[in-house]
């Protein structure tokens, strides 16, 4: 095993362990994750396989194929995160809106001290 293989395989195993501890009950996510980790480990140990797949798909090198797939994954993850952020934003908005409405004040009712 070369140095880079050692680094990649250890990295994949750690990512796998981390996610397994977090997603205890979500079966589909775990299966998907294991499939990806398994691919990662196999490709790290046997880079020649990626070359074969790449040539089948009309891409020159295995490394390029991995790169293209990474770009797609990156976009997928970004959009997922955006969706999550928007959802959070909507929750925050409704909480703040509720607060603003319950604490509505009619300025004429205030005494002058508020303005100091």
């Amino acid at each position, binding site marked *: 095993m070369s140095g880079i293989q050692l680094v990649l395989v250890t990295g994949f195993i750690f990512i796998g362990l981390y996610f397994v501890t977090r997603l205890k009950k979500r079966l589909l996510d775990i299966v998907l994750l294991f499939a990806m980790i398994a691919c990662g480990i196999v490709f790290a140990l046997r880079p020649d396989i990626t070359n074969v797949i790449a040539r089948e798909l009309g891409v020159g090198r295995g490394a390029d194929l991995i790169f293209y797939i990474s770009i797609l994954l990156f976009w997928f993850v970004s*959009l997922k995160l*955006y*969706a999550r952020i*928007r959802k959070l*934003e*909507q929750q*925050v*908005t409704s909480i*703040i*809106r509720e*607060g*603003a*409405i319950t*604490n*509505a*004040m*009619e*300025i*004429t009712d205030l005494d*002058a001290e*508020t*303005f100091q």
Partner: protein
Amino acid sequence: MPLPAEAHHKKIVVVLPVYNEGPVIRQVIISLLKIVPTIIVVDDGSTVPVIKQLHGLPVVLLQHRVNLGQGAALQTGLTYARKLNADIAITFDADGQHNEEDIKSLIAPIITNEADVVLGSRFLPDSVSIVPFTKRFILQFARIINFLFSGVLLTDAHNGLRALNRAALEKINLTENRMAHASEFLFEMKIHKLRCKEIPVHIRYTDYSIQKGQKSRDSIKVLFDLLLHKLFK
């Protein structure tokens, strides 16, 4: 100039979203109060709370604890207007660019029940707005984008001066916190089949309102928000 007699038995409120506005806000409120008795000021988390500038002005103040954006502030004000059982709600900009005299013609089509939503336009034949060149260009582009997204073709885009009747007030719900709310407003109009009318308005481009207003480069951000809005709806 007072409102026409038919308007007197209608409850009319103005929603005024405010974020870090200068002393001009007092001027805007004072001139609005001559026309409409109920003003809902929504302080969208200004750094210096706007309450300090409202001394002695009879308005309702709603305060966002953090800054959420103009769309969110408008919706907060509209939700409150709903609670007040308003018959007509008007959205107005706090930077002094809108003319309070336009309110009369803005609510006329609602009083005669010709429209549920009335939008101000800078580009109708009778409007007396001198729109700066780049702004004019961007707005033309924006109205086409709005048309493609919402199916509503207007003569103007992102003009903050609007009037809503009771039905529109009940139905329209803005979820876009920032500037894309102006386009979302049109989507909502379309979804709820609200009748819409545009009327010419007079927009004052002062140095202050230009500096406070949206910059041309913000249009890219709005477009991005719109795409996300459509994607995640």
